[in-house]
């Protein structure tokens, strides 16, 4: 697996989007990240984007990880451009889960999420470590 000590150098903010109460994936992903040496701070379900931003600022987090499976990701992340503009959310934003309410809507929703400024749009938790590693190592290099 190589040296993963750098994973614990910066905090990560984890949570579920504002309108979404699905807790199971969030709990499991939290567990997985801890087991793999990351240091996630879990805001849990139904978390407005502004709370992600505040927590990221407070903890000087390397990334914000927003989960959503209820189909409302685009709506729940619509405030992202404003937060970016106001400088309230500076670190990379990773999205994971179901981007839309059905399979047919996923491609368009993924594109919308990227337009909103989401840096990584993932489907499966297994994709997360590699993406976080790249974010963390970039952050540590530039720091």
């Amino acid at each position, binding site marked *: 697996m190589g040296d993963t000590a750098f994973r614990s150098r910066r905090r990560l903010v984890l949570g579920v989007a504002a*309108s979404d*109460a699905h807790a*199971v994936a969030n709990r499991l992903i939290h567990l997985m990240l801890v087991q793999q040496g990351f240091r996630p701070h879990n805001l849990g379900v*139904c978390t407005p984007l502004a709370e992600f931003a505040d927590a990221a600022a407070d903890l000087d987090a390397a990334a914000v990880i927003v989960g959503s499976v209820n189909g409302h990701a685009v*709506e729940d992340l619509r405030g992202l451009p404003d937060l970016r503009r106001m400088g309230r959310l500076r670190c990379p934003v990773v999205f994971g889960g*179901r981007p839309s309410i059905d399979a047919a809507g996923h491609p368009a929703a993924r594109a919308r999420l990227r337009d909103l400024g989401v840096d990584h749009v993932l489907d499966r938790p297994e994709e997360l470590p590699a993406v976080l590693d790249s974010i963390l190592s970039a952050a540590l290099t530039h720091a």
Partner: protein
Amino acid sequence: MRELIDLDRAQRRRLPDWSEIVDRLRSSTRDTAVAVLRRGGGRPALQPRCGVGGHPEMLALLRALDRAGAPDLLSVTIDSHTRLRHFATADRARRENPGQLNGYPLVAHGWERGRALVDAVGVPLQVRHGSPDGRDLFAVSLAAGITSFEGGGIGYNIPYAKDVPLAESLRAWQQVDAVTAALAGHGVVLERELFGSLTAVLVPPSLSLAMTLLEALLAAEQGVRCVSVSYPQSGEVHQDVAALRAIRSVAARYLPADMTVFTVLHEFMGVFPADRGWAEALVHYGGLVGRIGAADKVITKTRQEAHGIPTAAANAEGLRLARAACSPLLDFIRLNEDRVTEEQAWIETEVAALVEPVLNRAPTLAAGICAAFADGTLDIPFSASVHAHAAVVPLRDPTGAVRYHSPGALPLPRAALDRQRGLLNQRTGRITEKILADINYFAAREPWAAEPEEATA
């Protein structure tokens, strides 16, 4: 009646007079949801979940299901924003992009459109949501003439919100119950269904029953004399039939003698198989379990559950699969009754152990419930809310029945825990792997017959 319930001011302004609402409900010649359940007919009433954002689309969906699925009741499933009282967001979304909503924003569409939904179909509607505080939604539902409303202060808080104090949600739902009771005084008996599915993933039956029993007692305090108690299919038939029967025995023991209790089975609420063959078999199996367990109602799932909000056609097919399972042609099916009896006795014991300490606690039942959640003697697995400890760890035993691997602080009797540990000890492996495997109990099966999804569509 207006004084029984605190509503959002804007909402109150938009609603018709209470007297008009009550008169309309009283004088309606349509079947109420309770009338459908009372009529029975020797098999469970069938009801799908369904809700889309646009109003014309919702009308079309209800009509399509009514026609093609022959349901006994239909749902108005509410979108997530409305559930959480983000009424403004729901309103903007339904204007700008209704097709992206995961349910029907009834409050934003308003009660007049709700009436159009009621008038669109031949069967009664139920509002299904997940609002810790569903008062405004309730008022709009009544104004629309909808005679069935799901929810309760525990089951619509802990799985559905992060940080709504239990005392708040219980108070909100006490008001809903008070209005329900007052309406019954006017001759309008609503279906008040209590959501026993909780977080829907590996919920031990006694935990589901304990929570709905407490909600039923809270409703009874407000004068409600008719409730539906729902229970989520675990997937092990003897356990599920035992749980459905236990709803009745537990109700007989703890609830007022004059209280009518309907039993509702939720077809499997956990992670569904993506494979169409397995999904269809599971939808059918749910109907069969409901029927063997003599449920008054079964809420059906669809073969698209793992894939997204279902199409009307897939939803109708789910209804029809469940209907085939309820056919009198299957009257011959027998279970191992000894196993069912044994399970039922344990469920009753566990429910008593969970509920009785709460009943004997604190000044009020509501306060007792809050205190019990605070110290973890009431708790659920995978809680969405910070107001439950989420220290309970469930697992499946080798037969597939859901057991307490760890009870957290739940005051379960030693004998019950020993029995469950004995059953669970037959399994080997790491605990996190076992939990994952159990979450995916049905989803992880080998394809039943490989073929593309939507081939018939």
